[in-house]
């Protein structure tokens, strides 16, 4: 027993040394201070399994990728079988897989969002959306809101409300941010020079802040009046996360472009996408092959995504997310009132929650202590005092109870320390 623990510790330390020398010391310090100091072996259902076999409830889910549950055997089978039947294909070419996924996605989205472009990482998808808006409108200004976070590539980074943005000199010009939830500010900002208005409906990395339904309806109207494109980032909120297929269903409006994350494949394949209107697609008819992406529309990935969408339709995980989200919110809300000195508040929609702690130090400590209580989570990228909880959408009432207990235990431990 002891020797095996020692062996595990020995291996862990030696791998950590390797990781420090091939990645960076800073990275190791970061995962330690953020409560992610483990080696992930995989996951199943609602749990993440580490290399020692220990299980944690996965409340990180790679920022909302594993909506259908971790380690889906059915999707993995599709991946393995597809890779034996086809490969990525030539990216400029037409393929059955691209066409079929485009059709399948169109049937899953609201009828207006019937066209698609497939990309790889989330930032690229958002960058493509901004380019489409600029290209289509012939305008350059992009308006976003404060508190958002969209990714690490040019346009996305420029719109994200985080300190990293300023490390790389001037970013893409003509991007401005207005206060989130402020209709008047949006009205003043939207002019005939505006190409796009970009936002997340629920700011996952910023305390899960969201606005009233009327705000989104106003934005929709203001964009129409100004001839601007309304872009919604659904990479964290999409595919059921907020208790609805897409968060714009929850807030009852339809954007011109929706940015979709890896949940499109159930987290089985690095694929993202933008879904957009037929009107916007005329731009890609006029300028074919103007936005290229080698792995975008990877034929194997397309097959995995088609199967994942089939599963979404069959299982409707948004219904469970709404129910379990309601239960979990109640429990968390109750807990937070018992720790007024540490927890400032709970906010969330469906199974996307944020616990706002007193400060960053406490948020970090929360993430570190969470491991001891049996779950993993991560801090918000915009509001570093917030801790985001986004479990798989297939959780049970038992899981809800366990998450709530684990959160309470974590706070208890912190209180003692």
């Amino acid at each position, binding site marked *: 027993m002891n020797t095996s623990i020692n062996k595990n510790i020995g291996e862990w330390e030696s791998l950590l040394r390797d990781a420090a020398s091939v990645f960076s010391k800073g990275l190791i310090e970061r*995962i330690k201070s953020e409560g992610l100091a483990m*080696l992930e072996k995989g996951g199943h259902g609602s749990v993440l399994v580490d290399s020692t076999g220990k299980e944690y409830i996965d409340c990180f889910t790679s920022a909302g990728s594993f909506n259908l549950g971790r380690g889906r055997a059915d999707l993995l089978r599709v991946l393995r079988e597809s*890779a034996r039947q086809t490969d990525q294909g030539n990216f400029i070419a037409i393929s059955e897989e691209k066409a079929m996924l485009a059709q399948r996605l169109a049937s899953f989205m609201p009828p207006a969002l019937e066209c698609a472009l497939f990309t790889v990482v989330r930032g690229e998808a958002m960058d493509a959306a901004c380019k489409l808006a600029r290209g289509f409108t012939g305008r350059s200004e992009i308006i976003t809101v404060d508190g958002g976070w969209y990714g690490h590539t040019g346009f996305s980074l420029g719109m994200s409300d985080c300190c990293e943005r300023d490390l790389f000199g001037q970013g893409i010009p003509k991007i401005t941010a207005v206060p989130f939830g402020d209709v008047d500010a949006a009205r003043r900002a939207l002019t005939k020079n505006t190409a796009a208005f970009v936002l997340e409906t629920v700011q996952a990395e910023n305390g899960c802040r969201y606005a009233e339904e009327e705000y989104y309806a106003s934005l929709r109207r203001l964009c129409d009046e100004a001839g601007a494109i309304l872009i919604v980032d659904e990479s964290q909120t999409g595919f059921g996360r907020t208790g609805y297929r897409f968060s714009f269903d929850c807030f009852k409006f339809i954007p011109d472009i929706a940015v979709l994350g890896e949940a499109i494949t159930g987290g089985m394949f690095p694929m993202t996408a933008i879904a957009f209107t037929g009107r916007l697609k005329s731009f890609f008819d006029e300028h074919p092959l103007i936005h290229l992406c080698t792995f975008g529309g990877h034929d194997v990935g397309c097959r995995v995504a088609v199967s994942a969408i089939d599963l979404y339709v069959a299982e409707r995980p948004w219904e469970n997310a709404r129910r379990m989200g309601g239960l979990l919110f109640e429990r968390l809300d109750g807990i937070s009132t018992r720790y007024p000195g540490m927890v400032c508040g709970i906010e969330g929609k469906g199974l996307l929650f944020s616990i706002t702690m007193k400060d960053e130090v406490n948020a970090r400590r929360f993430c570190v202590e969470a491991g001891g209580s049996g779950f993993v989570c991560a801090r918000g990228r915009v509001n570093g005092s917030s801790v985001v909880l986004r479990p798989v959408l297939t959780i049970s009432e038992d899981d809800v109870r366990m998450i709530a207990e684990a959160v309470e235990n974590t706070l208890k431990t912190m209180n003692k320390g």
Partner: protein
Amino acid sequence: MKKKISAGILRLNKQVFKLFGKHISKNQIRFLAAGHLDILESERSGIGFEDRTSGRQFIDAFSSAGCFNVGRMNGEVIKALDDPDISDMGNYMVLSRNKIEFAKKLAAVSPGDLNRVVLTGSGADSIECALKLALGATGRKSIVSMVNAYHGHSGFSLSAGGKDYYKQLFLPLKPGFIYVPFGDLDAMRKAVSRDTAAIILEPVQGEGGIHVGSDDYLRGLRSLCDELGIMLIFDEIQTGFGRTGRLFYSEYSGVVPDIMTLAKSISGGVYPNGAVVYRDIDILNGFVDAHPGFHDSFGGGSEIGCIVSSKVIDYLVDNVVWENAGRMGDKFRKGLDRLMEKNPKIIREIRGKGLMLGVEYLHEFMGVLMADNLAKEGVFAAYSGNAPQVMRFMIPITAVERDIDSILLKIEHAVKGMRFYLALMLPLARVMIFRNILNNVNVLIAVNNFLRKLHLA
């Protein structure tokens, strides 16, 4: 060679075109059709695939711009997916044994002290990461790139691109980029200063039309960078992993860049992945230590991606695939040179290294016609929309002698087939105004789609 296709498949094919046109882009089909590239690939394996409409066997001379360095649908690489421990992509930010093992393997095969790795998801993602690393580490503002450079289509990677065609509809992009002619060291000397964060280049320009960076040029860049504290970034996304006859093109010159970007072939054509490798030097380490989350790629460096990419490296190393690329490249090159000698009115120049070869035709309009003629012979070769006179030949580098003989023969036939069109067009092309019309891509597409219809009827 040619298989009979069932009516059911033909109906399905029609449906595919219809759906693609409806949901993605109708004109992309028209554009591809002009060069006879509107082909549905099936039965992919080795160096080619079967056209699902004609049943004809094709050699893949594009390889998704250099992705298939282990051949198409390499069984050994696909087998990596059977690893019983795989469950899904895993969480980004959380480490795993497979991620660490892959990074170590990559560092071990990378030149010089390129020992440090950032995991990414695609080529463009790697470029974003590399540019940010250089800008962040030096605190400087400007970056020198190349005229005609191609680095991808995301915000910063597009900004680094040297082709207005891809940028002009999306301006303004990131300021601070200067573009100098590729291969011109004097121009570079004039462009750089102590405010230059990085020089970024593809050591062999791919999309720009296969321009090979000479050893002297790359060494010149290296010493300029050393002198002024500039980060030298080699984009080896196309040239990397054996394509040019070395595992990395930089090995020819012995120049170790400060940052190297990778993607495409590291995926084995099976599962997307990418990476940035950088030198183990204080200025870069210091920045990454201080900002370890400066480029967290969500979809990049996934658990499955790392398992597959590790296998790709094993395969390339175990089979010394780059040596094969060098040998086959020489043979291919000699054949093309002979063809050029025989057809001076069609081929202007052959360029390239290893199995990254480019044929430049005399006139722009010839690229589309050649693509069409090659397709008739069973060769899938792409011309680029904005430099249609250059055709890239980038067959899977696992090709054997027989494959080279076969593709050379097909190219020879295709060139012969050109004579019919040229009898028509060359006299016209002598007149400036007609030449301009012929070389207009839109005209080309319309004309050639018309010719193709005639041919079919």
